[in-house]
């Protein structure tokens, strides 16, 4: 049985803050298919299109019939534990610092046999397990075996917590607490057991419904933060960046027009200033502090979340300038991910469809409820995802975008 995680003690300030040693990260190009699926929370294995064999580890050709016609296909992960072992020694720095570490051999119902990281509640050979792929601290996919069915407190398992960014006992900054989504995010992080939620509070003179109730939560501390003001970002970072474990950047400006429907560039500039430059300012000020604390105890700095938009993938002309700013933010988020990954900080990009808020008032449903989006963000952190497409609209657009971005472009130009 997993012991519930206890609130970590305060760190001893006379000791050096431990620095990150990443687990082995080198993988061949062919293995990145496993990582790409794990980034979205799926276990995908190569399936031979000729003989149907499911194989692991990834290879260039089918291990059974040598066909090169291999496709990545989602797997249920159902299987049984064949054998378990406990590692008491390792020359690899990452594992050396986390010994003892449990490994096992699992036979999937689909056929393949895998060496996996073992959850603490998977103990007896023959025990049913669910195998899934997770990103490890180096951002590369590894396969892990979880107990099936689930067990109490299983999220607090040492190995599993290493693979995810669970907000429990972590300190979170939500960059804008004033929007319905911002408020939902704050409540979701409090519900997930976050220790502290700092809530950005720009233009304090603007009163928005619900905000006072939010600031009454004991975990919540309002902080002045205006991502358009470099000094405001720098001052807040100076004050709290050394304690923040998860940054959630949801600050955005969203105006519902394209090129012709609005004179001038002021609204588009405001969108870029918040949605793109705001991310840049936050990343410059908070990024280094997060990187320096990515191995700082059980509640180490873990993740950076960007609330983007499915419009970042393809322009939605009725909200064309907003889409452009989100595309810019997406590109910068890829840069941030590349810079944070060597430190073991996960960058989670969230691509929701239209949220049910004032700027999407004229869009017909389905629209994503702020509460549902906030829950998806917290779940993505728990599951260690990198790319999240919450809601039906986002899922449908993603599918069409993957089929053919040009076709989707034309469909969106015709109104979606």
């Amino acid at each position, binding site marked *: 049985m997993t012991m519930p995680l206890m609130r970590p003690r305060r760190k001893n300030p006379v000791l050096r803050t431990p620095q990150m040693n990443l687990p082995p990260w080198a993988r061949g190009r062919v293995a990145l298919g496993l990582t790409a699926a794990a980034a979205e929370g799926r276990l995908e294995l190569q399936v031979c299109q000729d003989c149907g064999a499911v194989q692991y580890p990834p290879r260039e050709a089918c291990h059974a019939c040598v066909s090169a016609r291999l496709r990545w296909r989602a797997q249920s992960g159902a299987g049984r534990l064949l054998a378990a072992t406990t590692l008491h020694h390792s020359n690899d720095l990452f594992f050396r610092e986390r010994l003892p570490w449990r490994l096992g051999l699992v036979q999937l119902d689909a056929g393949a046999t895998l060496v996996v990281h073992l959850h603490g509640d998977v103990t007896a050979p023959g025990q049913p397990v669910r195998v899934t792929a997770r990103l490890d601290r180096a951002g590369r996919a590894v396969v892990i075996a979880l107990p099936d069915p689930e067990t109490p407190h299983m999220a607090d398992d040492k190995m599993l917590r290493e693979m995810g960014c669970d907000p429990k006992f972590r300190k979170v900054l939500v960059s804008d607490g004033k929007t319905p989504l911002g408020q939902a995010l704050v409540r979701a992080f409090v519900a997930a057991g976050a220790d502290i939620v700092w809530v950005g509070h720009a233009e304090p*003179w*603007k009163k928005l419904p619900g905000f006072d109730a939010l600031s009454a939560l004991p975990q919540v501390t309002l902080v002045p933060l*205006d991502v358009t*003001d*470099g000094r*405001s970002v720098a001052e807040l970072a100076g004050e709290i960046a050394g304690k923040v474990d998860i940054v959630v950047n949801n600050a955005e400006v969203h105006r519902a027009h394209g090129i012709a429907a609005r004179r001038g560039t*002021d609204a588009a500039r405001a969108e870029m200033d918040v949605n793109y430059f705001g991310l840049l300012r936050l990343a410059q000020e908070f990024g280094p502090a997060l990187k320096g604390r990515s191995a700082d105890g059980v509640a180490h700095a873990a993740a950076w979340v960007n609330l983007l938009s499915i419009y970042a993938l393809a322009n939605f002309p009725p909200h064309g300038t907003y889409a452009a700013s989100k595309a810019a933010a997406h590109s910068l988020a890829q840069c941030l991910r590349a810079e944070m990954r060597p430190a073991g900080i996960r960058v989670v990009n969230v691509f929701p469809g239209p949220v049910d808020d004032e700027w999407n008032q004229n869009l017909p449903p389905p629209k994503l409820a702020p509460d549902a989006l906030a829950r998806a963000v917290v779940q993505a952190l728990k599951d260690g995802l990198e790319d999240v497409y919450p809601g039906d609209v986002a899922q449908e657009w993603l599918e069409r975008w993957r089929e053919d971005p040009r076709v989707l472009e034309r469909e969106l130009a015709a109104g979606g």
Partner: protein
Amino acid sequence: MTDTAPATVPQLTPAQVLGALGAALRDGGIRVVDLTQTLSPEFPQIALPPEMGQCWPFRIEEVSRYDERGPGWYWNNFSCGEHTGTHFDAPIHWISGRHLPNNAVDTIPVQHFVALACVIDCHEQAAADPDYLLTVADIEAFERAHGRIPAGAWVLMRTDWSRRRDPEAYQNFDETGQHTPGPSSEAVQFLVERRDVLGFGSEAIGTDAGQGYHLRPPYPCHYFMHGAGRYGLQCLCNLDLLPPTGSLLICPPLKIEQGSGSPLRVLALVPGV
């Protein structure tokens, strides 16, 4: 506007007046009071409904600070709107003044940037009522105590609103909008038509009251002052350091081509103690 040269120094030539002024500035006989709020990112800007165009707040970014971006020098780039911080409103700012001649900051006669000021003290009324509107009766009471407002002078409404250093208290919004003091429609018309003032100045974020949109006409100070070619000053401070009459304001806005206003430094010359 008529000539308002002080009648107390007829024996001096203009050159002697300037010489005496320079000497008085040097020996403290005349002091200079700064009526300007510091431009900073924290100072609030006017907030319009979000679907409308917005005035930019003051923002500043370092170009270099004796570092790899410029080893021997420190400088910044800044951005703001024409109506950010302590600022000047030109007649072209309002639709009622848009067809007037010389209605923009680059074409206003520079003579108007140096003028006498009267300060009407409403700080007690504003403390009791954030929505306080300056009345014609207030103006008449001021004149009974301090004499008639001279033509071509600024009229400044002292409310001590600038002492609200917390931006939230300074803006003073609730769900019905902003609550800050300003002039009544009747008072503005009295000042323009009966007293021929140069303009109106306030300590709050606009020359009009926070609820000025609900007056008749909406935003009467903007409508009547600018419609008559008069000016506005807002976000002033230190008005409590000015005498009711007898101070001289120096307030030239930036020379922006067809500018509707500009942030500026507002100085007042006052008799020394």
